[in-house]
């Protein structure tokens, strides 16, 4: 399992109701359903990913996150999760609001654009960073709203969103002491646990 998913599953109580936004092939939900007996639903728009979910028996719903979550009631989920998709939606701030409305708790992960490699790439080459972890070029990338950890935390502060836990890992999802010392420079992926 992807290491950020490994960390997330630790934060989810057995038997909870989970909504996974942009659930991909359903890996996290399948694991949570089998191991933690959660009642999980995933929203996805990619037909191949939807197919993988159906083949795996994951509750997948074809729904575009950019259309909002208005079809879900307030607090209808214990946890709303979004892994590596915040940077790909049109309005991350509005999606975050919606997640906090629908779920009692929110877990988000996203790539850190403030990582030293990205900084140096842009600073030295003068080009938008392309890496093994973020292999897209600027014109075809689905990642339209890159942010750094600092940016995200500023948004949370502004919206009075309470950060209950934060993990910073590198591209191999290792949590090393160096990362915690200067996360915005050294961390590649952030995993946040937030509530209102």
């Amino acid at each position: 399992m992807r290491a950020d998913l490994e960390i997330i599953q630790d934060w989810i109580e057995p038997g909870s109701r989970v909504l996974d936004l942009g659930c991909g092939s359903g890996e996290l939900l399948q694991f949570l359903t089998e191991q933690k007996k959660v009642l999980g639903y995933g929203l996805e728009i990619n037909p191949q990913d939807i197919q993988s979910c159906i083949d795996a028996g994951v509750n997948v719903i074809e729904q575009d996150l950019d259309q909002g979550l208005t079809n879900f009631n307030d607090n209808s989920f214990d946890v709303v999760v979004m892994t590596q998709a915040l940077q790909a939606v049109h309005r991350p701030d509005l999606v975050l609001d919606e997640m906090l409305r629908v779920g009692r708790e929110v877990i988000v992960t996203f790539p850190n654009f403030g990582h030293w490699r990205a900084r140096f790439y842009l600073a030295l080459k003068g080009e938008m960073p392309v890496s093994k972890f973020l292999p897209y070029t600027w014109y075809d990338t689905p990642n339209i709203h890159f942010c750094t950890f600092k940016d995200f935390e500023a948004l949370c502060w502004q919206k009075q969103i309470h950060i209950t836990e934060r993990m910073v890992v590198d591209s191999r999802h290792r949590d090393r002491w160096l990362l915690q010392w200067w996360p915005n420079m050294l961390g590649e992926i952030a995993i946040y646990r937030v509530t209102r």
Partner: protein
Amino acid sequence: MPSSIPHDSVGIVTPQLLEFKEPLPLRSGRVLPEYQLMIETYGTLNADRSNAVLICHALSGHHHVAGYHSEEDKKPGWWDSAVGPGKVIDTNKFFVVGLNNLGGCHGSTGPQSINPETGKEYGPDFPVVTVRDWVNSQARLADRLGIQQWAAVVGGSLGGMQALRWSISYPERLRHCLVIASAPKLTAQNIAFNEVARQAISKDPEFFGGRYREHNTVPKRGLMLARMLGHITYLSDDSMREKFGRELRSGKLSFDFEADFQVESYLRYQGESFSESFDANTYLLMTKALDYFDPTVDFDGDLVAALSGAQCSYLLVSFTTDWRFSSARSREIVDALIAAGKRVAYAEVDAPQGHDAFLMPIPRYMEVFGGYMNRVASELEPGGNA
């Protein structure tokens, strides 16, 4: 006829007529004293009787779901694209049951049957049957076939309503419910289309209050109009444009009121051939069953409450250009299922064919449908949940 029966066909099939002597109480308060159901089955029921799949038909469907009735048969059953060996509903794995619903005109008890109380044909006196009544009759059919629990109940459109009703009326008797291109209940617009169809039939001078057979006639014009209207609503603007455009039949305008455009002659042909093969009273009954369907009536209009007792898993599929049973209507069911905490998967298939798409082997549709049915089949294997 096909020069030879395709290898992925169930082959030559023979319908069976089953007699039910126990009276069936109907939602209207009336009782059907006895009835017959015309059915077809494909595949083999396994030893623990866990691999049965029920196919519920839509407005004009029937028991002949797949295969051919003879070597001379020109067309296979109405859902042959989905049912057969190696197809999405794989008859190598499943025992598939199709039936003609009560009120139908393909062999089951309906307006053309003899009313045992009068010794004459029911005609317009055949009771108005509802989706719930059909599902009750299907449950008795399951009893007769020795099927305690369906592996899946599957239906599109009006058939999807029956599948949904199964999950509410008999929650312990199905493991999976596949609701395709359907709706939790009809909208006013949808009922309006049905009403125009019914008016076309009942205002035909040859309808005789539904007793046309006593007058040795058929309200063909009314049926034809009803079908023409229905047919338009089953297609999409795009699919009609693609199929006909503004193509003329004879290359030039006739400047009279005959059919100038290809679309006109197509609709006339569809309407006429339908009017020769379908019963007018059955058409009225089927459209009423559609209009009346509302699983929330016993639950104060609350769909979440209506579905809260369900125990099965669901697959819902809708099609982007279907405006008669739009994706939004399927989403209402999906949202209610999620709110009720039921297992559900939903796919919205991008397809230009409108409502008719649910009968077509559209690649993504077949992949979703087949992937789900594979899961259903995998539960039948040792160690599965069936």
